């Protein structure tokens, strides 16, 4: 099954869930970083030429070229909560597989192994590896024990609907209650015929069919949510 969920039990005695991200957002993040690096290298080459291409300027240029090739991702990941500028733009972040932040060591391993992920051409090995394991890890991630997860902010409090609540006539199990709540909250995303179709299944609860059934189910959902 395709499932991007990643669950870890953390101290505090609870499971938390994260969403791992696949090759496409990671490709865009990489492309943005590549662009940024390209611009920096271009600017540096302009600045350094007047200081002598084979002297002071050239020397510093080569040092920076080295730093940008090998250190750019490591420094950003360690100092900027697992995000290079490209990853920040895409709302993704590198993290250890126990969901603790990447440290200098793990970041170094995953980024030094970039070389093998690149082989034989344009990250083919990395892509194949990513697609053949459950958590979209490239070779460097596998050796370092890291993941790339989505860190988009979830919506804050959901807006409350103004519906008059209605107590259901029969008692319902917890899971059934939460299904009705989910039905209420997802109804803006469902077409009306689909809503009716779903509400009709619960005719035994609502004692109504069609539009009235949908409306009653919404009211029951509001009651379970605690609307007053």
């Amino acid at each position, binding site marked *: 099954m395709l499932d991007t969920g990643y669950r870890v039990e953390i101290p505090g005695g609870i499971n938390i869930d994260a969403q791992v991200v696949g090759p496409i957002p990671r490709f865009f993040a990489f492309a943005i970083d590549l662009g940024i690096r390209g611009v920096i290298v271009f600017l540096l080459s302009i600045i350094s030429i007047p200081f002598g291409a084979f002297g002071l300027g050239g020397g510093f240029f080569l040092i920076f070229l080295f730093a940008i090739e090998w250190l750019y991702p490591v420094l950003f990941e360690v100092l900027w909560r697992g995000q290079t500028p490209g990853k920040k733009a895409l709302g993704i972040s590198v993290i250890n597989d126990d969901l603790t932040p990447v440290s200098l060591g793990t970041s170094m391993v995953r980024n030094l192994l970039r*070389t093998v992920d690149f082989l034989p051409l344009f990250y083919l090995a990395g892509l194949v590896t990513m697609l053949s394991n459950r958590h979209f890890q490239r070779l460097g991630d596998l050796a370092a024990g890291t993941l790339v997860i989505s860190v988009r902010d979830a919506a804050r409090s959901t807006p409350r609907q103004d519906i008059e609540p209605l107590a259901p006539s029969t008692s319902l199990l917890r899971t059934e209650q939460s299904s009705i709540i989910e039905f209420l909250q997802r109804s803006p995303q469902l077409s009306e015929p689909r809503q009716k179709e779903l509400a009709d299944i619960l005719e035994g609860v609502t004692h109504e069919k069609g539009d009235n059934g949908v409306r009653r189910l919404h009211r029951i959902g509001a009651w379970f949510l605690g609307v007053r």
Partner: protein
Amino acid sequence: MKQHNFEDMHESTWRRIEDSLQNPAQGDNSKILAEHYLLLCQHLAIAKERLYDAALVERLNNLVLALYRELYRFRSESRLNFYAFLKRDFPLAIYRHRYFVLLSFLVFVLPGLLAGAWTYFDDEAVYSILDAAEVRQVERMYDPEARKLGREREADTDIFMFGFYIKNNISVAFRCFAGGMAVGIGTLLVLFFNGMFIGSIAGHLTRLDYVDTFYPFVVGHGSFELTAIVFSGAAGLRLGYAIVNPGQFSRLDALRLAGRDVIPMLYGIVLMLVIAAFVEAFWSSSTLLSIEIKYLVGGLLWGLVLLYSFSGRRYESR
């Protein structure tokens, strides 16, 4: 308790924590973080247990994750204690990987010695290993005739060469490590060919009797650079070996353990290569210093590096 009552009770707390995550307070706020973390863990557990809706559970889940990441951002393990690293961690890592170091050393040095002997005794041999342009370039670099007495390289040329060595030599060592992911074969190839190139150049230059220009130049930084390449080979082989023979672990777990294991080696390798680049650019290239001083200092550096590299044994717990 209905979901809305629960939300109404805690909404202001969640807001406050969300805001404090976005604009963290200055200084040590680990105590507050820990309090928030425990509170939110409890709220998330309640929300899950009572089957509150997915949006609320997701919001609390993300809050707990953010707090957790913040809380573990500065755990002591990731704080580098430089002194303890130099004194204990790096030598110990070398000692614990001694068989990989030995293998890496042999794969690097044996082809070097063979190629060196071959090029020393056979005039043509060097051309079977390097192409003619490379041979000419190396010959020109170390030709005693071309080196006018007292011609000191300019300081900014030194900086250029420093940059050049950093970019090239450290990249070679990094690739040597990365080659370990190809079940170690990449590492073996990098070691083998670099050993062979270096050996054939040394043999060829010795044959041409460029001894007084070549060896005093390389003896100083060679101590750090060649040793670091052997170590990066060892780190790469450790990864490769974990894939080939994972023992009682799954291959993936073995690889991940190996990855964690070699981290001190990586720090050390980077440090050694940076030192090597400094020595190469600002010491080895100097023509003012006499050959004797260069051999003396070079020998001293070799002795120190080797002594240091073998000092890890006493930290191994038995």
